[in-house]
């Protein structure tokens, strides 16, 4: 047995056709036309500068690249407009500069940019793709004569992979065009195997590229007492005031300026309009609200010390002292009366009774059950309730009081005002004076 390893038979390098060399572009053009007219299409020309007419001479068809550009550009436009609409008008509606959520003029610059971006990038990469690039090896470069392709020689190549390729025929055709030389295009003889070193280097680079990400992940997961890094010091510490800070610029020492009286946030009319509230919020804000005073006093107390030894917290008010509306902000019509009556009898009479005396069926039943906890529903005709303004009554209808729940979810604001006005009607009806009766009918109510 011999320990002489058999030599691997070297594969002959592949051939890729013939290449002809010319000294001027006109010869090249003539040759290209001849080759084209002989029916060969897998050809190419290599010239130091663009030669006019070479595309036609080689029979190269128009490229499809413009279609890539058009479709990519159109895609960019659509994506941009859709993205902005989605972001600003649907997903997170955001008022910018007082403009509508879906403001198409504002969307145009981004749409323009994305059109150009998509079109340009696609064109570049499609062009590279259509040209089969990047390519790591081209058999053309094996022949040292080819170096002059960027200098002063013109080359015409007929690929062996052409449908009609025939070695002898192509060679003789090229020779008949009067070239300086005709050579076979052979593949480079070096091994196509990628050197192991490249893998190691690439692997190392990938590892290195993971380092910044790893640092970031660690910093996000870990705790640190060290102060932050401020790479951009004057961005992080800007000479401006932030909300909630104090300032000497304004008398009330606040940075934030209160909104102009009467300002209403978008979609929040029901938080600001007396029609929805029953009281005037701006006027109320000017009053000293007892609930607020209590809250402040509570907060000012030191929880560590005995509450009794500190400033006493004011007693809870019997009545919130808001700036109630004294007149209903709605015109009292017959229709409104009918509405108020209906709603009162549906929602309120159950407890308060049809006459408003607090003797509704629920109350009667509870009294019959004689459970000690039952608190009789308020009678509308008590002095206290008589003295309440219509705005206060509205507020009670909407928000409730004590055991009574608010009926804001059952009654629209208009219905609530109707009910409040109906309460007034009931009060008037049970507490009328002789002067309220029209003249002609007063006689019916004389005491004798």
């Amino acid at each position: 047995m011999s320990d002489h390893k058999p030599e691997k038979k070297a594969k002959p390098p592949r051939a890729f056709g013939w290449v002809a060399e010319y000294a001027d572009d006109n010869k090249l053009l003539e040759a290209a036309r001849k080759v084209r007219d002989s029916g060969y299409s897998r050809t190419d020309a290599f010239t130091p500068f663009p030669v006019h007419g070479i595309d036609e001479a080689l029979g190269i068809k128009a490229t499809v690249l413009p279609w890539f550009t058009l479709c990519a550009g159109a895609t960019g436009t659509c994506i941009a407009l859709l993205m902005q609409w989605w972001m600003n008008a649907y997903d997170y509606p955001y008022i910018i500069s007082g403009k509508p959520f879906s403001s198409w003029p504002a969307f145009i610059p981004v749409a323009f940019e994305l059109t150009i971006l998509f079109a340009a990038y696609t064109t570049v990469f499609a062009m590279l793709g259509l040209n089969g690039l990047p390519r790591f090896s081209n058999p053309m470069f094996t022949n040292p004569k080819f170096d002059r392709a960027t200098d002063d020689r013109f080359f015409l190549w007929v690929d062996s992979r052409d449908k009609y390729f025939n070695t002898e025929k192509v060679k003789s055709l090229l020779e008949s065009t009067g070239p300086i030389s005709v050579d076979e295009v052979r593949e480079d003889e070096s091994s196509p195997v990628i050197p192991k070193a490249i893998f190691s280097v690439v692997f190392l680079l990938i590892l290195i590229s993971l380092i910044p990400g790893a640092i970031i992940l660690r910093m996000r997961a870990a705790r640190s007492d060290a102060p932050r890094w401020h790479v951009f010091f004057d961005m992080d510490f800007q000479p401006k005031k932030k909300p909630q800070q104090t300032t000497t610029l304004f008398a009330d020492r606040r940075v934030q300026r209160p909104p102009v009286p009467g300002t209403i946030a978008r979609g929040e009319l029901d938080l600001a309009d007396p029609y929805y509230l029953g009281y005037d919020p701006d006027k109320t804000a000017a009053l000293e609200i007892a609930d607020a005073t209590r809250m402040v006093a509570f907060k000012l107390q030191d929880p560590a010390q005995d509450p009794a030894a500190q400033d006493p917290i004011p007693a809870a008010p019997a009545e919130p002292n808001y700036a109630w509306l004294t007149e209903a902000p709605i015109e009292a019509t017959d229709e409104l009366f009918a509405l108020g009556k209906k709603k009162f009898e549906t929602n309120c009479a159950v407890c308060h009774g049809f006459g408003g005396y607090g003797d509704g069926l629920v109350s009667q039943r509870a009294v019959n059950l004689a459970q000690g906890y039952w608190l009789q529903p308020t009678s509308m005709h008590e002095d206290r309730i008589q003295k309440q303004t219509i705005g206060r009554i509205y507020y009670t209808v909407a928000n409730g009081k004590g055991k009574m729940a608010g009926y804001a979810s059952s009654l629209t604001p208009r219905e609530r005002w109707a009910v409040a006005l109906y309460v007034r009607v009931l009060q008037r009806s049970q507490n009328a004076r002789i002067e309220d009766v029209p003249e002609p009918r007063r006689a019916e109510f004389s005491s004798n």
Partner: protein
Amino acid sequence: MAANTLNDNVTMPASWRAKAPILAAVGFCSVLISLGLFHFGSSSENEATGFKMFYHSYLTNYVYCLSFCLGALFFVLVQHVVRAGWSASVRRVAELLAYTIPWWAALFLPIVAVVFSDHGTLYEWSKGAGKVEPIVELKLGYLNPSWFLLRAVVYFAIWCIAARIYFRMSREQDETGSTEITLKLQRWAGPFIIMFALALNFAAFDWIMSTDAAWYSTIFGVYIFASGMLSFFAVMILTCYLMQRSGRMQKYVNTEHFHDLAKWQFGFIVFWSYIAFSQFLLYWYANIPEETIWYKERLDLSTGWRPLGYLLIALHFAVPFLGTLPRAVRRNKAMMAGWAVFILIVHWLDMTFLVMPNVGPASAMMLIGHFVCWVGMVSIFLALFMFRVGETPMVATRDPWLPDALAYQQMPM
């Protein structure tokens, strides 16, 4: 005259030139008819509205026609300053167009007359001190009849001198074939472009922007420039096409030149749209009443001009952009001639949109009179162009760049 293919006849057909006097007459009559239409059709109390409408219409159509000539002049200057070869065969047409500017200076006189008449018929500021709103009062140091006239004289002087030099020397080159002429024209083109640009910019301010003296837009000059260039290229394409159909200019102007002119036209469609939208976007975003008032007058439903505004977006940008986008269209002479006509109509709508809303809400009578005035001014333009061309060859046959122009080929796709 037999139109054999690729003959080298480069003069304007005599049958065309014969029509020139008729066109001039028709033109002047149409303008007068439009005056009558405005006068008798204006429904309001005072006669002044009729004259006001007429003068605004006259101004609009005047600027419309002048914009072709100014675009032509700029084209000539630019081709010289960059030493372009491809345009040598079509440049003479532009030189001839530009050389009609001196006659257009004469047609500016009615505007000068109305400015000096103090009634504020065309420009509010011409009423003078004490009769205009405070913000316009502050501008009267600039906007007054004497300075207006002086500036107009300067603008026309710059344009006429440039047009005359470039035409005459090009014509001289027809006789002598001297390359020195080309070198001189190239050298002077730079300074002339600067003067041209300044003149055009301030003419736009003076003549068009001051119709609404309280309003201003710093990009307005560029807007007028863009729309003028666009319409010039349309005129150029149409002229070359019609000449070739009559068997002229066939040897010297081929598909490659049409393709390039079409590319220029396409580029200026995009450029115009860009400028027009820039002006709009900035004013829309800032929402400053002093600036948005101009757009409000044109886009508010109550004045009736909004359809025209939206039409411009569609017809001045979207349609011609997509229509002339394919390369095949730009290499088709007949199709480009069709698009040229389309552009010229749309350019008129654009000029209308700039000036006419200043008169008041859109009305049928106003638009009919305006249309008749347009027909008149276009006829006058054609007549003046034909008078100017006369027997002049419409190709500079001894231009040193001409061989380049004839050998010119577009990059194949």
